[in-house]
């Protein structure tokens, strides 16, 4: 009776198994790379209902972030400004501009402007702007050079690993709290040295346990 399995069958089986592992592994690695928030989320630049330019307002005109994002030091949310805040200036400045029609409509009708969220965290993440800003983490650390963006885009992955990198080594990202909105500010010398000093003085301990962010 001839052998049901050839002599090479074992070898072939092993090679086939190895091939499957290699193909799946490579595929998995490629998928993991492509699906990582760094690839998937960074660069997200949605079209906004009003062509508002941060570059013009925060960059060229030099308006402070806090002029519009008023609650950043008091609440979890930095607050997208109320239409009222736009109209503080735009009742006189460019009061006829067709680009601002949506703003004027909102002010007249009381209906909100439907801004599109750029920096989106999952619902189970409880990020607190107040805690970060008052500890001296600048806007630029997470949002990038918004003062140079005509349209706001996401520049950081905002993934949990990225959060934890900073929570485990905060020193390079901590500056005096009064300078958090100065996006172009650089300390003299190594930022990590100044950061370490501030962390020591103020007793900053960034938590890395689950419920710090997940509740």
């Amino acid at each position: 009776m001839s052998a049901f399995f050839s002599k090479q069958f074992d070898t072939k089986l092993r090679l086939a198994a190895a091939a499957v592992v290699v193909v799946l592994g490579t595929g998995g690695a490629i998928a993991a790379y492509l699906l990582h928030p760094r690839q998937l989320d960074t660069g997200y630049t949605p079209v906004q209902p009003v062509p508002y330019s941060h570059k013009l307002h925060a960059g060229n005109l030099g308006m402070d972030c806090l002029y519009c994002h008023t609650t950043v030091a008091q609440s979890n949310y930095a607050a997208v400004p109320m239409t009222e805040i736009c109209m503080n200036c735009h009742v006189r400045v460019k009061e006829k501009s067709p680009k601002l029609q949506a703003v004027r409509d909102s002010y007249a009708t009381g209906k909100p402007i439907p801004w599109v969220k750029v920096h989106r965290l999952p619902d189970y993440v409880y990020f607190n702007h107040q805690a970060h800003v008052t500890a001296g983490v600048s806007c630029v650390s997470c949002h990038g050079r918004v003062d140079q963006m005509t349209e706001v885009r996401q520049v950081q992955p905002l993934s949990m690993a990225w959060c934890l990198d900073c929570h485990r080594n905060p020193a390079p990202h901590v500056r005096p709290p009064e300078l958090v909105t100065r996006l172009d500010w650089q300390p003299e010398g190594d930022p990590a040295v100044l950061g370490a000093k501030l962390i020591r003085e103020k007793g900053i301990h960034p938590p890395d346990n689950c419920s710090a962010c997940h509740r």
Partner: protein
Amino acid sequence: MNELIQLNLSSLTGRKYWRSLNQLADTPEFRQWVEREFPEGASELLDSGSRRTLLKLMAAGFGLAGLTACRRPVEKILPLSKGVEGYVHGRPLHYATAVETCGVATGLIVECNDGRPTKVEGNPRHPFSLGATNAFQQAMILDLYDPDRARQVQKQGVKSSWAAFEAWWLEQSAKLGDGAGLRILSPRSTSPTLESLKAEIAKKYPQSAWIEYEPVNFDRVLEGARLAFGQPLQPHYRFDKADVILALDCDFLGLDTLSAQPVRQFASRRRPEDGQELNRLYAVESNFTITGAMADHRLRARASDVAAFALALARQLNVTGAELNVVNQPADRERKFLAAVAKDLLAHRGRSLVVAGPRQPAEVHALVALINQALGNAGQTVSYTRPPYQPSDSLAAVQKLAEDLAAGRVSTLFVLGGNPVFNLPANADWAALFRKTTVVALAADENETWKAATWQLPEAHPFESWGDVRALDGTASIRQPQIQPLFGGRSALEIAALIAGRAERRGHDLVRSFWASQWGAEAEAKWKKALYDGVIEGTAFPPVDVKADAPRVFAAVQVALKPAPAGVEAVFYPSWHTFDGRFANNAWLHETPDPMTKLVWDNAALLSPATAKRLGVKDGDVLEISSGGRTARCPALVLPGHADDSVSLQLGFGRAACGRVGRGVGHRVESLRAASNFWFGPAEIRKTGATCRLVTTQEHHTLIEPITGLKRHNIVEEFTLGEYRERAGHGKHESHPPTDLFPEFDYSKGYQWGMAIDLSACIGCNACMVACTAENNIPVVGKDQVARGREMHWIRLDRYFSGEEDDPQAVMQPMACVQCEKAPCESVCPVAATAHSPEGINEMAYNRCVGTRYCLNNCPYKVRRFNFLNWNKDIPEIRKMVFNPDVTVRMRGVMEKCNYCVQRIEEKRSQAKAEGRRPIRDGEILTACQQACPADAIVFGNINDPESRVSKLKRQARDYSVLEELNTKPRTSYLARVRNPNPELV
């Protein structure tokens, strides 16, 4: 294993505790609950779910899974167009307000997130709240977002409008003349503004009548005072000043008071380390209430025998005139109790207190007033003021209304709230009578009264409308709305203004102008202060100095008190689930087990084990209870400790016209309740042969009592005062656990959170359970799922009986995750979804959990809860408004449990940091359960601070950890229950 180790249970030492009669008898059904990880069927997917359904669902799931990840969801940010003063997105706002139930008002503080009220708290400034609430007040917020509320003005079921109703009234009012055909029926109200409107209406329509009716009322208390003092007066008790308390059929810790104050006062005298003498509570009652469970001595007696007891006590205390012999002589076992109580009361003259429940006839209340006076308690532990509302005999008034309706003397009947068709005494067919006239019904939901009305008007929720209330002592509060009426409802106040023909119709204007007229010049400042504080200063009534008239009382007693007939009697009680039916559509309350029976989603006819045996009745047998030609059907439930020959019935169930939650839940017993047996009366019981499935949670999550050697280590610990003193002399008992296999973690730095729960103070009132449900977005699962052991409460109240099944003692134990330092759940999680925080909290990361349920299996405290289904899937949009935005709403397949309200810790931490990085103060963080607790039995704080309240409690001699033998080192410890028995009765 169980076959190998057969212990002789009778040879064990230590006290035996049991949670149900099944456990006492050690039946196989009970063993299943203890031994299985889940009861049989708990992990099945669906009722009729088969493997095939599961595969179909999985296939669909995989198919769709690919699609969902394709596109990033676009989210909108919708900022306000114009700002609102004081509003910061993401920061809750708190407003003081007040609510009333049956004429009992309590001050509250409501938390609003982004304009929607989400959580109710007590108002610490209010004398009857003291910062705490009861379960009903916690659950009120859910009623606000009930999608089944009345939404639309209707005329006989046809869509109409407020304008059309007002036009009709303008026409109708012109025809009323002196108002001979006008009747207004409303619930009891303490509102001073409404009182002024009533006076205006009475002036405009002198022949009209305003009738106040509550199915649960305190008329007999006030009538008793009228008998004793010649005027109706509201008694006020100082439970904190009384060393000896006798409660005669009075559940003053439970449903007979409706405010936190008596509980706080009582509990303040149950802590032996406070240096004050421990009080002693005697209870005489038919039902086994939570007051009975707190009592040091309890006498089971039928409700109708309480009068005989009160009279015999008066005689024993030598109250002049008490020699009457009109009611039954007490039986022998009662005599011993009576003698001991009388002696104890006499030994504590001026520091004792006798109270009677609202079910007892006026004569008993008058006798109690005499007894308190004879004991020198008047002015010490009991005082009297005028009542916060105009007292009236509501039973007589509704009887008159029935006659007027039947005779056609009524042309217009306004029903300003409540549900009278459902709960008026069954002497008349109210639905038929209502059809004889034009009925204008203002109703919160489309209830029985709404269905019987001509004009159907949606009522605004108390959190949607302006108003004012008076607490029992007269302290007035403004009720300010938290949100605009969601469905365009109006308040009773606004309808009353319409009837009175007032120009101002808005609740705000009515309340404000009334108080402006009271305050004069400083009205503006006082109004602001009243809104901010939640109480109006200086509005409490002064105590009235009165003397009871003994001859008048005994003359009345002679006439009124007949010997109680032998045989079975039926007693009506408000229910822990629906109260009187007003919370019938509130799923949170239905799912919170009754404190004593642990019954959910039902009411039952409670019987003693002996009576049940005599009648041959088992749990779930449907009984037909009849009295005076009226009948009601209700399933039986045997309650150990219930009085023999008595059946306790809970009101407010079996609502025919109700929202989706409460429709058809339970059995209506109001059909048995007439003016003659309004609270209790003789009844006949017959088995119908039908059965009804009753679901109780009493055997769910039963902890396994460790037995080492031949000693039981109890889950609940109890001492008598004598034992406690002996133990306190030796200092705190230190355990020496076996060698630890796990490495130690350094918990000596920073905040280390811990909790102490005082079993001596805990009355088991459910407030913590509902507060936790509201705070932590805990889902409701329904009767069928509870039967499978899938209830989701993070904190539960375990009720343990000990002693004889006929007359046991009971202890309540709140049980939530105890946050073990050596947590058995953490070491078995394959994905590290549950991990320890450096501050000692055992955390759950829901987004990490894959649902293996190993943690639940390994938890000796049985406090982990698994989302077997997506409980939040089909809930209506409006119902989602009640969710706490600080807590994740969990998905199917995820484990959850108590985390010491970590969102509140983080909120206070960030507040402390923002305020110059100061340390968090002791008492600044209150967990939801702690905040709601009327007994102040739950204390949370930093155990690393030796001066914190929780550290001090944990150093007490009666502090112990549950299942200490397992060396899990729980952060929640318990303070043993201390009883103060009378040596003469032991």
